[in-house]
């Protein structure tokens, strides 16, 4: 019984061993598998933040009274602003803003105090830099918030009679880093897997060893399996390393089940490795393969809900196109398991499309392989 099984799977096992050695043997390719993802994890999670801090702002205060100065002080002491520049006239202000010395400016007119005392809702002008739309919107939000809570000279404001109790579930401090890391857990292993699987076949074609694979008694299914399993293995390994770093160094909470997470990661990377194989089945050289990988990766990342939430993608057809992107579904699962402890029903709901994508790709790969034999 055991003998029989062994005989049946021996060719496949030998192929898998060979694929493993091919990658593992070379010191540089070993480094290239593990170093960039870890490096990227660190750079991305520190660099990528949508909070705006250390803002340099300008003030043009025509009013220059106690109240307006107190308002400026209020802004200066808030945690978002790092430095306030004072300007004498509009021209100076414009120059500073043009040259990006400041990110935003506050213009207080000379009737500010008068109006304020008359309870006539005085206006201030927030001028922000439209070259960076997102930051300018956020900075305006900060200033507005400070303005609406501003109560000088011990005055009591009684404007807001409704008390909003805001609770951010799953991420109480709205840490952007948690979001980035839980997304990177899908994206980084994906990069490894797709490069490995797309290049391995193209390399064999370039070096002429692909013929060797075709001439030994291996079935097409076995060749596909052999070409997929090792990238998959390294991808999952990468995923686990990133997970451990995130938990122990970045202290991200992990609420769901680890097993479920790894299971989903496997299914996801399975689909990605098939896509990589599909790409390499089409290309003659490693260079072409690599370029096609780029052509795939960009849309996949941008239309996954990572750079922008799916519901914000404007042309509706582009939004609909995201259903062929396995990464989109995995990001839901990844965030779901890590931050939300999402229940199995929803995980299954997102695993299903990934699975369907894999099956379709698998059949396409098989067809291309069969036709490849001219």
């Amino acid at each position: 019984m055991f003998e029989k099984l062994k005989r049946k799977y021996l060719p496949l096992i030998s192929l898998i061993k060979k694929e493993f050695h091919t990658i593992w043997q070379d010191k540089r390719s070993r480094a290239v598998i593990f170093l960039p993802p870890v490096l990227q994890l660190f750079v991305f999670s520190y660099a990528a933040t949508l909070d705006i801090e250390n803002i340099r702002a300008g003030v043009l205060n025509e009013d220059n009274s106690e109240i307006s100065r107190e308002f400026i002080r209020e802004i200066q002491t808030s945690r978002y602003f790092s430095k306030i520049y004072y300007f004498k006239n509009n021209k100076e202000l414009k120059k500073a803003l043009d040259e990006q010395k400041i990110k935003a400016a506050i213009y207080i007119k000379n009737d500010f105090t008068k109006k304020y005392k008359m309870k006539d809702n005085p206006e201030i002008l927030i001028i922000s830099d439209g070259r960076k739309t997102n930051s300018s919107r956020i900075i305006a939000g900060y200033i507005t918030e400070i303005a609406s809570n501003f109560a000088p000279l011990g005055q009591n404001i009684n404007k807001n009679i409704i008390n909003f109790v805001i609770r951010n579930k799953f991420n109480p401090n709205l840490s952007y880093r948690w979001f980035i890391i839980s997304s990177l857990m899908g994206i980084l292993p994906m990069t490894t897997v797709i490069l490995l699987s797309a290049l391995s076949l193209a390399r064999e074609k370039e070096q002429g060893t692909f013929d060797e694979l075709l001439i030994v008694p291996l079935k097409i299914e076995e060749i596909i399996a052999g070409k997929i399993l090792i990238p998959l293995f390294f991808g999952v390994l990468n995923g686990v390393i990133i997970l451990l770093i995130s938990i122990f160094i970045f202290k991200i909470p992990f609420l769901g089940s680890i097993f479920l997470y790894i299971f989903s990661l496997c299914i996801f990377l399975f689909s990605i490795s098939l896509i990589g194989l599909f790409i390499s089945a089409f290309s003659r050289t490693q260079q072409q393969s690599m370029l096609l990988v780029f052509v795939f990766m960009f849309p996949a990342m941008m239309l996954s809900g990572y750079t922008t939430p799916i519901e914000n993608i404007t042309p509706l057809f582009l939004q609909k196109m995201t259903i062929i992107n396995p990464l989109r579904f995995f990001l839901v699962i990844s965030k779901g398991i890590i931050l939300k402890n999402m229940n199995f029903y929803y995980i299954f709901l997102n695993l299903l499309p990934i699975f369907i994508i894999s099956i379709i790709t698998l059949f396409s790969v098989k067809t291309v392989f069969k036709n490849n034999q001219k």
Partner: protein
Amino acid sequence: MMNKNIIFTFVIKEFRQITRDFSSILIAFVLPLILLFLFGFGINFDTNTIKIGIIDENNTILSRDIKESLNNTKFLDCIYIKNEIEANKLLSGGIIRGYAVIPVNFTKEFKKNSNPKIQIITDGSEPNTAKFVSSYIKGSVESYLEYEKIKSGKKSNSSIISPILRIWYNPSLKSVYFILPGSISIIMTLTGAILTALVIAREWERGTMEAILTTEITKFEFLISKYIAYFILSMLSVIFCFFIIIAIFKVPYIGSYFFLFLISSLFMLTSIGTGLFISTIAKDQFIAGQMAGTISFMPSMMLSGLIYEIDSMPFIIRMISCIIPAKYYVSSISSLFLTGNVYKILIISSIYLFAFAAVVFLLTYFCTKEVIE
């Protein structure tokens, strides 16, 4: 030192090779198109409709009006939910991005003027959306009550500063106006670096380098020719991109075209230089590809200030971003498009980019070998 005929011959040869390789055309013209399209639509901070839930435990005229008012804002799409258990399920399943709870005694408290509560629960796993959800709900409830107050003739008893927002350079605050010109930097690192990352390695691999080295061409002429060929190709691609941005996406352009060309050329030289440099030191294609991605493409995406604000990053990463050419290019290009010729930015950037390009050229020059081994 330079022989024009030799350089001319070499450039012609490069062009013939480029036009015959479908993958370089793909990288130079098709990929930029896809990227522009995605940047134009995909990276979008202008929020569209967000799905939220409302639990109305109060169920009075007032609470129903509030519900109605929430549903009427164009940013929110409300569904009514019976209880919190269900709401939490939908929230964790990612179906809704947040929900508001109007408690049982809301109307009673409101009429008593004793600060009634409204609970807003958001999905923190999408921090950006979560912020929008809470501020939208807050804003629309407040403005509804304000409106009611004005209708009933009440006047507030204290002064509120009312800020008015003026967005300069981009009054309608369209993020594509910033993202699209900025994304050219990413496209340029792609066409510049990825395309050239393999070209010298390939000459060695195919044995042509050996043959070239025994002819009269010098190392300097060899490198200059490579620069010229890929410079022309990439600049064509860049002009093509600018045309699409201005003509198709209708992004306004108010700067001078001379500076646009100058600054783009300088940036392109840094990018091609980086690619050629990688090509002289990495002989394996896989390694070259990974290096091009890690040292040229990733920084220009992450650390150029295009997507993430540089000022908010930790000190060390801010320092690193200062040596990255893309940072200078992004700020110049967005100024040129939206502000006009800001000479200080343009001059500093030009000088830096020129210096960077020169250093990379020298590095490449000294790393290019004239003998085997």
